[in-house]
């Protein structure tokens, strides 16, 4: 069956904003989602490991770091969910015909994701309120680690389901056979060669990001406890370097073994814009690893900061790469540019004005909370018991 016959049509309504703007918002939105999401995914596993490693010594840095990371998770989960709205909205607007179809083929795991999320989210609160808050939580340590591990496996499962859907939506040639085998939505995209390397590439990256998060805790704590702060920066950087090195290997697998050669070719000179972005991301990866390597040895603040900044840029670049890959895949099937645009100018104006207002408000709010908490001496300990 000709797969292009299976691409549903767009609704007979105009788009309310230009495609380039939607794409920009999609990429920025996904970026804002990816940051907290990575912290949660990697942070869950790493906090479980830190707490398990230090289960006998609750005064060790390792335990305190794990505790701080675990206590911050509920907030990051909340951010990740909220920031997911924008990319989910614009992927539906721009690539809905492909996205809805693949979602329906994976309906059951796709919907189950919501319940796994609910479950894991409550587990994160359970850890904070029921376990960490309790006095004499030492004997609870194995339970805490185990809970965090179960929670994290839940999040990893969510990520894996997403990878399934995001890859299946790119390959309409598989749809008909999958649907005809059964219409109950009980599938996953197992046969896809890019599925595993792609998922692993994102998954391993989240551990590196969690390392960066620990380093950020360290930056904050430098003023209060020089030694602990330096320990956090050093440990965080080490984690980052290790996992990023592993991820280089996974990335190679993804690039050479996962995606078809014709698309890989676009990133290696075939498409100028895509190549620039790809090279830039490689360069950023190199910079961030080198800087982190330095800070992992001498806990240097400037080196860590440089690594942090280049990592933030790197994640953005990687998201653009991911977007470019999607464009290459969908080019023959789906062209949002062909849908007429009747811009809702007023609403667009309101949106941007309120976006600026929101950012201003968040700064004010952040300042308010920050200064309220700074009055307390031992912030990290407090935040874990709040």
């Amino acid at each position, binding site marked *: 069956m000709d797969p292009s016959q299976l691409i549903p049509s767009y609704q007979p309504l105009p788009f309310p904003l230009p495609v380039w703007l939607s794409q920009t918002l999609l990429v920025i939105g996904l970026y804002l989602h990816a940051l907290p999401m990575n912290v949660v995914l990697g942070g869950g596993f790493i906090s479980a490991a830190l707490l398990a490693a230090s289960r006998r010594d609750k005064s060790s840095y390792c335990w305190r770091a794990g505790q701080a990371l675990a206590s911050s998770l509920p907030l990051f989960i909340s951010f990740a969910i*909220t920031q997911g709205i924008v990319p989910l909205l614009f992927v539906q607007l721009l690539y809905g015909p492909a996205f809805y179809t693949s979602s329906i083929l994976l309906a059951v795991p796709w919907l189950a994701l919501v319940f796994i999320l609910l479950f894991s989210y409550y587990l994160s609160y359970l850890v904070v309120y029921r376990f960490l808050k309790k006095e004499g939580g030492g004997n609870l340590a194995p339970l805490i680690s185990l809970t965090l591990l179960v929670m994290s496996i839940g999040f990893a499962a969510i990520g894996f389901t997403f990878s399934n859907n995001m890859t299946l939506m790119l390959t309409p040639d598989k749809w008909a056979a999958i649907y005809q085998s059964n219409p109950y939505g009980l599938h996953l995209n197992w046969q896809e060669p890019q599925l595993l390397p792609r998922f692993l590439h994102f998954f391993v990256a989240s551990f590196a990001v969690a390392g960066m998060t620990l380093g950020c805790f360290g930056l904050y704590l430098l003023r209060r406890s020089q030694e602990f702060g330096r320990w956090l920066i050093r440990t965080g950087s080490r984690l980052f370097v290790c996992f990023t090195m592993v991820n280089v290997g996974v990335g190679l697998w993804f690039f050479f073994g996962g995606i078809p050669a014709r698309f890989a070719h676009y990133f290696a000179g075939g498409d100028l814009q895509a190549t620039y972005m790809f090279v830039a991301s490689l360069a950023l990866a190199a910079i961030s690893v080198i800087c982190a390597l330095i800070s992992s040895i001498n806990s240097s603040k400037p080196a860590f900061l440089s690594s942090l900044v280049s990592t933030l840029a790197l994640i953005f670049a990687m998201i653009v790469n991911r977007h470019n890959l999607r464009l290459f895949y969908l080019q023959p099937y789906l062209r949002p540019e062909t849908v007429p645009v009747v811009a809702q100018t007023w609403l667009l104006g309101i949106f941007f004005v309120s976006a600026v207002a929101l950012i201003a*408000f968040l700064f004010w709010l952040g300042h308010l909370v920050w200064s309220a908490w700074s009055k307390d001496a031992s912030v990290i300990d407090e935040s874990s018991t709040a």
Partner: protein
Amino acid sequence: MNYPVWVVPYLGGSWVIGIIAIIHIFISHFAVGCGAFFALAEELAYRRGDERIYAFLKQHSRFFVLVTTVAGAVTGVGIWFAVSLVGPDGIASLIQCFSLAWAEEYLFFVAELATAFAYYYTWNKISRQKHLLLARLYMIFSIATLVIINGMLTFMLTPGKWLTSHNWVDGFFNPTYCPSLIIRLLIMFALAGMYALVTSSRIAEPKFRTFMVRYCAKWLLPVFVIGPVVGFWYLTQIPQATMHTIFTGIQSSGVGNFSILARALYLSLILSGTIILFNFFGPYLNPRGFTFRIALLFLVCGLAVTGTTEWMRELLRKPYIVYGYLYSNGMHTDELPAKVDASFLKKGRWATAMATPDMPPVAKGELLFRYECMSCHTVRGYRSMKTLLGPRDEDALVGFLQLLRMRDRSVNPYSGIMPPLVASDDELQCLSKYLATINQKERAQAISMSH
């Protein structure tokens, strides 16, 4: 027809959405109503300098954060997921129309959640004026999220002038926008009261508990005093045909002929009555005896009334997703072929692609059933075909389907309740052949009875 159909046996796709949506509405309405509750109750505490109310609010805010930021937010995403699996054409239309309104909604969500966390994490850490300010800000942001989403929700029942202009403002500020906004706000206050009763019931000190339980009970008053008036206003704004369906439903139910709509309406009324009486005899008259268990029971009643009322509201829209624009089964009204016996399987991407020429008639019938009927019916389960078909044989089914093809209300009594059937004569035969496989047992029974 445009998309593959997700087959959900027994429950039906609509209840997949329904179950998630009812839970979400029950929590999200609480989230908004509680904004007002925090703002007003904290003001009370501030004016009186009453530490006990502060302590109560602090306690309540943890419950609030745990319920709304987790279950509220996640089920909200859940609805979105479910809707896109069950009715992709509907959600795609809404998104293509209102993506910017949704984006705006997102901004308020962020503000709402950030403020909620700030409110929760700054108890006794910032000045009381500032904390009160946070409560008020939260109230404003949370109500703003309702102000936006209400436009999209009411649009589906009463798209109003949008049908001709296709201008988002017409669709957004549609005829039922205002009454619906007010009713929802009132319900939100009531739910805020009900949830707060749960926290109040755990207060140890009897005198303060009496005070707080009564205070919370009063939050249910507005919806029962103003609600009916606004409800009437709402009814004057809904489409004529829907009004007609309601009236016929009530009339025919008087003599024992029940439409699902009439049942949902009665249930909603009965359960609302229960809430009024319960609230009066429970927390209001007997605050001392209002225990935690009773409070939870009351909350369950609240969930029941929310569920049935939302179910009824959804039923009002039948047979459309967007009234007068998009049918429940994903067919656009302007796609309806002029000729009564035009073929269905030559329309829409997936429906066409799935219909291979060498398909056996029953399989073809099943495909038609999937695309034309399954958005509302299941084979056995909710609105079960097995039950509805009874012992009809294939000839009777053909006759019935021919009736369903008609678009004239005087000929087809189901017109306006069900989308018109689109099928060529051949397809009609296939569909009836398939339907006849569903009620085989019933037919056999009927035959054995008559002998």
